[in-house]
């Protein structure tokens, strides 16, 4: 977990007090984002407002669209126009984006989508936090696809996660989802943020007529190479539809999924450990709940319980192997979440009975506190099944 550092080249505190949503906007600019399309929604609106303020000054594009369906569609169109594009929303808007998110996946379009989660379902709890979209971020669109979903538990973490999201979106040619929540998005912390770089210069690999455009091919937008065919229909490397059997598309999707698991940067950033080496009780958490869990670990240690934290910084692809390693050492696993039990499902699947898994859930818009998590960890230590 990245923490704020107090640097002082001239003895002055250069940190800025900003909220998570501002950190996302700053991270996007730092990563070369030059196109934003969005629609107002609490608690993500400040990202929209910040991008509306900053992008025109940099010659970038800011578009307030008529809804989230069109915001998602516009960033995909923009990527194919050569832009580095993003949108941000919350649960209701994220639900609306799902069909076009699937289009971004099957057309291998790099783009970044922020979902600042709020209580759901439906309009739910607009100003209160939730982690209810963990599964939607993975399985929300119809069909199978590779998924990259990144979380954060601090304001600086929002910035770093955003920079990473753009990098991975480009490298893997896919939509990347940043999964935050109402508290992280609106929380203010002092952070050191580097000055923004100059506006990005577009640069794409040269392609010859007839070169493949999908699968392993590099992403080259319209107008930067030979003519291209892009479709949401199952297609081969040339982009032309294969409607009788989806053999080539299936192969490309399987290949993308396996490439994510092999990416050294994903492997490095996958999880964050805190006091986990000798832990009997491993708390597996992510986002705002990981922040509370970290504090719970300290409280448990003070009370003589050898606890540790596994922070799922990259939620999807899921860190199966890491979970198996943790389960081999810590025989008790606690999964606190602000939902009725979502990421506990892949945790159980990965652990396969090697450790007892206990879930602590809350979906009323209230955060789980360090005390809640510590007390729950102590209560399950006796070993009774949850």
């Amino acid at each position: 977990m990245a923490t704020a550092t107090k640097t002082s080249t001239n003895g002055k505190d250069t940190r800025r007090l900003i909220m998570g949503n501002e950190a996302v906007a700053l991270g996007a600019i730092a990563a070369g984002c030059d196109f934003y399309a969005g629609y107002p929604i609490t608690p993500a609106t400040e990202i929209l407002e910040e991008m509306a303020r900053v992008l025109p000054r940099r010659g970038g594009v800011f578009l307030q669209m008529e809804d989230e369906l069109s915001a998602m569609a516009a960033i995909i169109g923009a990527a194919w126009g050569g832009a580095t594009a993003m949108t941000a929303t919350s649960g209701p808007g994220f639900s609306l984006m799902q069909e076009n998110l699937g289009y971004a996946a099957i057309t291998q379009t790099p783009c970044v989508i922020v979902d600042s989660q709020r209580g759901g379902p439906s309009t739910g709890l607009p100003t209160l936090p939730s982690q209810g979209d963990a599964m939607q971020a993975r399985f929300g669109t119809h069909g199978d696809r590779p998924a990259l979903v990144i979380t954060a538990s601090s304001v600086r973490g929002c910035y770093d996660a955003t920079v990473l999201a753009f990098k991975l979106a480009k490298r893997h040619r896919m939509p990347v989802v940043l999964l935050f929540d109402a508290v992280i998005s609106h929380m203010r912390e002092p952070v050191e943020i580097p000055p923004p770089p100059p506006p990005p210069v577009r640069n794409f690999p040269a392609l010859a007529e007839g070169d493949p455009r999908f699968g392993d091919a590099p992403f080259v937008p319209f107008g930067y190479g030979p003519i291209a065919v892009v479709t949401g229909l199952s297609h081969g490397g040339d982009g032309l539809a294969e409607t009788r059997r989806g053999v080539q598309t299936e192969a490309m999707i399987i290949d993308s999924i396996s490439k994510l698991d092999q990416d050294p940067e994903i492997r490095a950033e996958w999880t964050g450990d805190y006091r986990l080496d000798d832990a009997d009780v491993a708390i597996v958490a992510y986002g705002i709940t990981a922040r509370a869990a970290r504090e719970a670990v300290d409280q448990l240690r003070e009370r003589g319980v050898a606890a540790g934290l596994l922070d799922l910084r990259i939620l999807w692809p899921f860190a199966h192997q890491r979970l198996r390693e943790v389960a081999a050492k810590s025989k008790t696993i606690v999964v606190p979440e602000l939902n009725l039990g979502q990421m506990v499902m892949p945790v159980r699947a990965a652990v396969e009975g090697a450790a007892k898994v206990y879930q602590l859930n809350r979906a009323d818009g209230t955060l789980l506190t360090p005390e809640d998590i510590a007390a729950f960890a102590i209560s399950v230590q006796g070993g009774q099944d949850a």
Partner: protein
Amino acid sequence: MPKLGLDIDQYLRTEVLPTVWCPGCGNGNIVEGIGTAFQRIGLDPEKVVVVGGIGCSGRTPFYVRTNAMHTTHGRALAYATGLKMANPELTVVVTMGDGDALAIGGNHFIHAARRNIDLTAIVYNNGIYGMTGGQEAPTTPVGSRTTTSLHGAVERTFDTVELALAAGASYVARTTTFDMQEIPLRIEEALRHKGFSVVEVLTQCPTYYGRLNRIGDPSDMLIWEREHTADEPVTLLSREEMVGPLRTGVFRNNEDPEYIEVYREMCAAQGGSYAAS
């Protein structure tokens, strides 16, 4: 690549033919009109993107030898808006059916028109959902039979031209597949126009609309088109009563401020250099 021997072969992706369209369908005439307009202007295929939605008309991008983007149902204009803003040097043409543009995509249609962004939207209006087998569309004439209005359509009919005009499109025209010479003419005007252009083309669906309404074969449907339209571009806004045939022609062609130019000025005022390349 195989040749059809047409003047516009260079703008057709002939290797993917035949099309998915039924014999007698009017969509091929519209594709020919698009190719002809491209050729008359001399567009570079690498600098053109044809964006389609979902449905019969949405397949157009596959048949035009330019960049092609076959998107999701109803959202073609939203994709095209992002694309055009990201690279305004591209000529972006959007092909949609009546259901695609006016039912599922109605919201994007009115907002693209409101922005007056420099896109050419071609609405293939056959009055029915063809790809899914002949269901009622918002453009189905009252009383017509479809598989979801077997007793005659009772919902009122959307008028593409009225909607486009009211929403702020700066070029609006309507023609029909009977008027073969006029299709490329209108598309060329729309392409040359700076702003949001709408060309509605009434096109025949003999398989569903024609059969369910007992109009006859494709040539009978073309005659039906002629009999139900009149080349007199007056609208509901300027007529006392909406009676008689559907009017065709150019309903608006003005120089309202175009969105990309307005956006560029706004950036410049803030010190930003938009699409400077």
